[in-house]
Structure formats: C-alpha cells, structure tokens
C-alpha cells in the first residue's frame, strides 16, 4: 500500500490515471485516509453528484495482511444523502485484494461528459479503464455474473446496481464475498450515487502475482495475530453468539427491552418479533440446507453471516443482518423471514442501503401508500425502485425525501439519514450518537465498545444515568480509530472484555508498521479523524442545530417504557469539545 491512484473521470479525451506516493497519508488506511483526504481536497459546498466531489476507496491499515478480521473497505466522499462528509465501509474481498495490489487509495475525481459507462481494471500492471455500455442498468447479481464471464473467479468486484447508475440517494456500492456474490455493501449515505455520477459501473480487482503485505516484524505480527484470534474464539459473543445466530440475535433482546422500533417508531415492541429472531432465522437456514455460520471475507474468524435458502433449498440471499430484518420486518409490521430475505436480495441486487430502504418503505406505509404488514406491497415498492419508476425514484432517495413528498410528519432521520434499529428513547445513549455523529444517524459511528480499555475521556459510572454524552464521545473516538484499521467492528467485545486481546490488536499494528502502538495513539487517531470530519461539516454549513433528533422523539413517549428522549441540547453540544 505504497501508492495512491487518481482517476480523473472528467479529463479531456477520456479518463486519465495518475499515480503518486502516499505522502502525508502514509501509515493511514480506511476511514482515517478517506476522511482526511476528503476534508482536505473536496470543497465542502460542492454538489455531491458534481465534478468537484471525489470518491475514495481505501483498504484498512491491516488489510491485505495475514491478520484476521482485517477485510473492511472504506469508501469516502461528500454524501448526496446527508450533505456531510461520509465514510461507508463493507466487508467482502475487495479491501484485501486492493491492499495486496498495493494501493492505499484509489480516488475517482471529476465527472465525464456524455452517457458512456466505464469499468476500471486494477491489477499488478496498473490500472486500465474501458467503456462498456453493455453493462448499462444491469443490477448487481447479473452484472457480476456477466463480469465473471470475462474476468473469472479469482478477482474481487466492486459494483453499483441500477440505483447507483440512476444516482438515487440511497444507492450503495457492492463488494463481492468469497463466493463472488455482491452481498457486502458500503450502504450508508448514497456512496453508490457518487460512483454512478462518475459513470463507473464496476471496478475489477485482480491480485494475481501479488503477495500478502509483509509486516516489518513478521514473528511478532504472527504471534500477535495468534493471540488476537484466540481472544476472539474464546469470547462468548465472537466465539459463540455471533457464529451461531449472527447479528439478528439482537431481535429478541431489543424487543424484550422495548427498544425495537415498530411500525415507523410507534412502539418499542413488535408482537411478531420472535418470528423474526436470529434464533428462528438460524434454525430455518440450517433446516433448508443453508448455513447460519459464514464469513464475508477470507480470514474472518467470527463468521457472523450465513446463507438463506428458500423452502426448496435454493439460494435467496446471504443471511439478512439484524438491521435488515428490523428495517424490512418490524419497522414495516412484517413478521415473515422469507419476505425479509427477498427484500434483502432486492436491496443487494438493485444496490441500495438496506437500512435506508426499509425505513423508507415504513415511512411510505405511514403515508398510506401501502398498509403496515403488507408483504407483497413492500416487494412491489422495491420493484418500483429497481425499475426506476417515478415512485421508485422517490423511494430510492430515502426516508427524508419520501416523507416530504408524501406529507409524513414523523420521519426518523438525522441529517437526512435514516435511523437504525434501536429506539433512542429507552436507549438514550445511542440517541446521542445518532444526533451528533458526523455521518447522519448511524449506529456504527459509536460502536467500538472498547473505551474502558482505551480509557478515552476517563471512566464513567455505569450505574448512573449521567454521562451519556461522555460515553457517546468515547465510543465515537474509538470507532473512528477502529474504522481506520480495516478491522471489523465486531472485534469490539473481545477487546473490551479481554485486555490481552486488545493488546494483541495493538501489537499487530505495531509489528506491521514497526512502531510501538499504545492506547493513546489509537485515541489520538480517532480524535484527528473526527476533528477533520467535524471541520468539513462546519464548512458545509452544519451547526449544532443539526445535531438533534427529529422533534417527535422529544415529544412522543414510546411504549412500553413511555419515555421521551431527554438528553439536554446543551450537553450534546459539548460532545466534540476535547
């Protein structure tokens, strides 16, 4: 990862490629690289779909190594959905392959005139770009099938579906998994629309002839990785719960807690929750010949994914995650896993963010377009998005726009991005993160639950209700750092509970780069990333008044706890004061 490639899609005479040393971005990866670069190089007031915006693909700091759990790819840009800076990341094979080819980042710049559609081929010999209009309006599954016919199975693909081409604001960027299915998505913030605006339909990554990235201290790296893997395997969450049930194991617990947003955030309990649970899902997957344990990239120890088959044993989609099962399930009053799986496939195929689309359909239900619980209606609406009909284009631009078009008062978004699957009234701490994150409502922005190990901002008494802002601040700092390593956020439990596993992670970083890493270094990196992102957003016109939840969370109590969101604005405004 010693070079950066820039591709000016709008250059006179066709796309122009240039290469440069990593320079000031040396040693950075993932979110740190994308956010620092976007904050520096992109005009904060540019139109996100215009030539001034840039789309940065960056593997994590440890991607392409033999290190476990290091396969996240970060994509950064100014978001067309939120207007803020955006980093969206995904698993799959792309990060590992891109890193092995040697790129710290590939940056798409400019915007081509005309209607031509491009594909980019990246291999050991460099980068080539070709016009391929035969790919126009293909969705991700048929698109990857067609590309495989030409480029084979020993590559990784980054693609957009029809939603990205149409520049819909919920459009995602797909990365293929080890079986070359386009199931891993940089989902949030409409990054697929930016790729569509650059007229890039696919990036083919071929690491033939390349080796895994070599650490500065191979022996120490190998030893640290072994301890890290041992830590993940022995922890009950990463070693038992996630492999057995996936993230959807949360459905039962959130529903029992009264924190499961139901029918567009009208209740915290869904009567059909048990039918959607991870436990029910895992049993169904196994019974139908699929699997409840599967990794999204090679080198994954946790294996939190799975394969969902239909009743005849035919592949439908990868195991829908908790967020998907919620957004298309309880949020829409739907209690049927087969319907959710079908919608998950459509999300992946059309290329849209599964959270944004599920929430949008729920908002459309609230508007009376279809009834809550209407399974066929939900599939029909997704079909409209895939077909690019006028209604589909409205829906494909997300919950906020759909709410405005159809006159819905209560639309669960922050900075234009749909809230994920945790109601911020009973779980107020997560509401602070939703409101204040630089990314728009995002549960993963404050997810790296190792702050006690990191000692970010000191200790907070866990049994007192004060300290929501401090906790969220600490979580956001830790997450910004972890997002830069390329490591999956699910390592968080093991590094929170097991200091030796956290140390092993630090030792992996240290041994790879030949430096001594401490918790303070991780914290400093997280703060640096967040500061750059906040600065970009401020220059883009965002103020403290944008760091708020929608008003109804402050006024409408939710059953069963009958709580409203009550963290004072003045406290939230202190979150980024460090």
């Amino acid at each position, binding site marked *: 990862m010693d070079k950066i490639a820039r591709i000016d899609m709008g250059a006179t005479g066709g796309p122009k490629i240039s290469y440069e040393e990593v320079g000031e971005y040396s040693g950075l990866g993932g979110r740190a690289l994308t956010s620092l670069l976007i904050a520096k190089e992109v005009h904060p007031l540019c139109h996100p779909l215009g030539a001034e915006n840039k789309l940065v693909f960056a593997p994590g700091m440890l991607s392409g190594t033999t290190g476990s759990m290091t396969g996240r790819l970060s994509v950064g840009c100014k978001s067309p959905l939120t207007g803020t800076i955006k980093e969206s990341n995904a698993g799959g094979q792309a990060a590992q392959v891109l890193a092995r080819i040697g790129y710290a980042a590939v940056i798409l710049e400019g915007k081509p005139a005309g209607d031509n559609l491009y594909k980019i081929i990246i291999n050991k010999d460099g980068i080539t770009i070709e016009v391929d209009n035969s790919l126009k309006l293909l969705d991700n599954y048929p698109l990857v099938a067609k590309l495989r016919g030409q480029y084979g199975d020993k590559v990784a693909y980054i693609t957009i579906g029809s939603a990205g081409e149409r520049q819909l604001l919920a459009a995602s960027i797909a990365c293929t998994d080890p079986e070359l299915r386009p199931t891993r998505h940089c989902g949030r913030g409409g990054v697929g629309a930016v790729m569509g605006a650059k007229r890039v339909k696919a990036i083919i990554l071929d690491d033939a002839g390349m080796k895994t990235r070599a650490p500065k201290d191979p022996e120490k790296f190998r030893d640290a990785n072994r301890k890290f893997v041992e830590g993940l395997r022995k*922890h*009950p*969450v*990463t070693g*038992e*719960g*996630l492999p*057995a*049930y996936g*993230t959807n*194991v*949360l459905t*039962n*617990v*959130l529903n*029992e*807690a*009264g*924190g499961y947003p139901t029918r567009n955030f009208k209740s915290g*309990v869904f009567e059909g929750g*048990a039918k959607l*649970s*991870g*436990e*029910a899902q895992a*049993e169904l997957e196994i019974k139908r010949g699929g699997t409840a344990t599967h990794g999204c990239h090679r080198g994954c120890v946790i294996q*939190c994914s799975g394969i969902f088959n239909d009743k005849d044993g035919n592949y439908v989609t990868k195991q829908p995650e908790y967020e998907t099962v919620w957004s298309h399930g309880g949020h829409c009053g739907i209690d049927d896993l087969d319907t959710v799986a079908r919608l998950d496939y459509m999300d992946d195929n059309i290329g849209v963010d599964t959270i944004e689309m599920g929430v949008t359909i729920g908002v459309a239900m609230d508007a009376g377009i279809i009834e809550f619980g209407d399974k066929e209606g939900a599939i029909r609406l997704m079909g409209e998005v895939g077909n690019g009909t006028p209604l589909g284009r409205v829906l494909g631009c997300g919950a906020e726009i759909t709410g405005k078009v159809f006159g819905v008062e209560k639309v669960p978004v922050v900075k234009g991005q749909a809230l994920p699957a*945790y109601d911020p*009234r*009973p*779980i*107020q*701490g*997560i509401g602070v993160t939703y409101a204040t994150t630089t990314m728009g409502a995002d*549960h993963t922005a*404050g*997810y790296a*639950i190792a*702050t*006690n190990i990191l000692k970010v901002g000191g200790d*907070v*008494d*866990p*049994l*007192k*209700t*004060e*300290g*929501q802002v401090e*906790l969220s601040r600490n*979580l956001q700092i830790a997450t910004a750092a972890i997002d830069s390593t390329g490591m999956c956020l*699910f390592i*968080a*439990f093991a590094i*929170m509970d097991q200091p030796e596993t956290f140390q092993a992670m630090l030792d992996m970083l240290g041994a790879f780069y030949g430096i001594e890493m401490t918790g303070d270094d991780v914290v400093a990196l997280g703060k640096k990333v967040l500061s750059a992102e906040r600065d970009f957003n401020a220059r883009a016109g965002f103020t403290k008044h944008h760091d708020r939840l929608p008003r109804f969370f402050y006024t409408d109590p939710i059953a*069963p*706890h009958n*709580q409203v969101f*009550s963290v004072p604005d003045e406290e939230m405004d202190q979150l980024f004061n460090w």
Partner: protein
Amino acid sequence: MNTLTPATLQLELVAGQLSAFYPLLQQGVVVGCMVGCRLGELLSDQWGISPDYVSKRVTTIFLNSRAIDDVNTALIGPDAVIALSGAMPGLVGATMRRGGYYAAMRGAMTYNDESVATSFREATVRVKLFNLLLGELGPGFLQRGILLSGTELVAFFRNQGIEFRHGCRAARLNGLAIDPALLTEDADLARIKSVRLTVECRDAV
C-alpha cells in the same frame, strides 16, 4: 380441571428433538414458582441454576421489560415476565449487559424498583429464553414443567413435522399412556384450560 390443578402431560423425546420447543421458549412459557423473592433466589434456589452460571452465562436479563443489573435486588412478583439471554453483540449488546460499562446508556429502562419483599407465595411467572440459553437452560425448564393451555399444546403439535412425531417415543396424559400421534387431534386435550407439560429426553436406541 382448573388452573390450580392443571392436567399433566409427560412426553418422552429422542434427544435432538428438543429444539422443537425453542420457539415456545423464546416467546415465553408460564412456569409455577414461589414469588415474593429476589430474582437470584428464584434462579438458584428454585430453578437450580448455579450463581456461577448466572454470573458467567446469563449476562443479560429483563424483568418486565426492564434491564436488570443486580439479580439480588430485583423482586419477583406474580405474573412477572423474566427474559434470560447470553452475551449480545454490538453496542446495544454491551449496553444491555448486566452491570456493564455502558449500562448508563439505557438508564431510562433500567430496573430500579426498591420495594421490599412481600409474602412468599405460589404463583406463576413467564420465562423467556434467548439464544445460547435455549439449549443450555431449555431442557431444565421442560423437565421441571411448563404450563400451557390445551389449545396451545394442540397447535404446537400440529406445527411439528414428521421427524418430531417419530422422535416422540411416549406420552402420558394425567398418568395414562396415550399414542403421541393422536396429540394433534385430541379434542379433549384442546379443551383443557391448563396443562403442565414435562419433557424428558432419551438417547435414540
């Protein structure tokens, strides 16, 4: 037959068929117990779940939808709903964890009733088991007995496939042996208001 003296149904299953009961256990089953005690006492003294197991494996507990931090202070009343879960992933998993570092984030739904214990008496509570605890605690609850209405029982048997029926080796209703195959159609069973179902597992011969 009334709720105070329920009918009894004893099932003998081939090991491996117990997972058929997991959906019921997830949604919650009614069990008889002595209430007016602390949750920790109920779990260990009445249900025989060791404090060490509770401490290490039952990391997330809800009592009437409120997150529990200390099993030794939470008071159990009649008709209480108790949900027991293993370790959960993600920030919310950490937030819900008993006495966890992020418990403050769900302070609005944390159990903080400071009532003193009232009379110790017989009653029923609803127990829900989630994730890893289904396989670990489920057999014990089924062995001790769960209360279902006859309608629920018949619906349960009708939902089972051929494997379960083949794995159901014996059944005794109020002490009398009956053909397990008839449980799906038993009109008398459907009319019973409350049945105490106990399930024993045996290795297949």
